[in-house]
């Protein structure tokens, strides 16, 4: 299982989407955190993937947490790093 660091907003052309395995985790960060506004695309991803976002980013960017996405701290992120076998930054 891989933790994918999604640094860009979800678009059809987003490279990461072609290389996900079922049960891989997705951390939306930076511009990636704006993906929370795309409820339909997020719902599709949530069927196969645990989805995370940093609490600080939600607060900073005028975003709202959505159902099925877990807001995490940096400490949580460190724990996730060992829970997943591998981290890939896209």
């Amino acid at each position, binding site marked *: 299982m891989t933790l994918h*660091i999604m640094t860009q907003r979800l678009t059809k052309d987003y490279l990461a989407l072609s290389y996900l395995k079922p049960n891989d985790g997705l951390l939306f960060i*930076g511009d990636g955190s704006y993906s929370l506004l795309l409820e339909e695309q997020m719902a599709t991803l949530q069927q196969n993937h645990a989805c995370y976002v940093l609490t600080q980013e939600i607060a900073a960017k005028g975003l709202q947490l959505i159902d099925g996405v877990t807001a995490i701290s*940096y*400490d949580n992120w*460190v724990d996730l*790093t*060992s829970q997943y076998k591998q*981290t890939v930054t896209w």
Partner: protein
Amino acid sequence: MSSISIIVTSPPYDSQMSYHAAQYAKAVVNSDNHQLKGVFFYGSGVLNTNALNLTLTDIHNVCDQWKMLARDHQVPMYVCVTAANARGVLSKQDASDADIEQYSLAEWAISCGLGEWVALSEDADRVVQF
């Protein structure tokens, strides 16, 4: 006890990732279950080790955070000398070798070759890139 090495390839001012990298690194050193083996600056990430970055008073200076991690937690901070020199980050020695009077490498950064990264990644259970 799980060990982590960090590679930073994003610049300090024109990306948010190096800010996240420093926050993440702090969380690792403060964790009881994890050990930070070191941070390696490569690509545009070497700009984090430019000692001449001045930031506005109302913006965080991520370079100060790297400095604190090095000083207070003895985290080794490596920077690839080739990538750094190509982007205007020179140690005193680099500058003198190139007959340039001025230099710019932060004193907390250790100038090195790519072999250091190979060693850091060999030592780590996990590698995280920013």
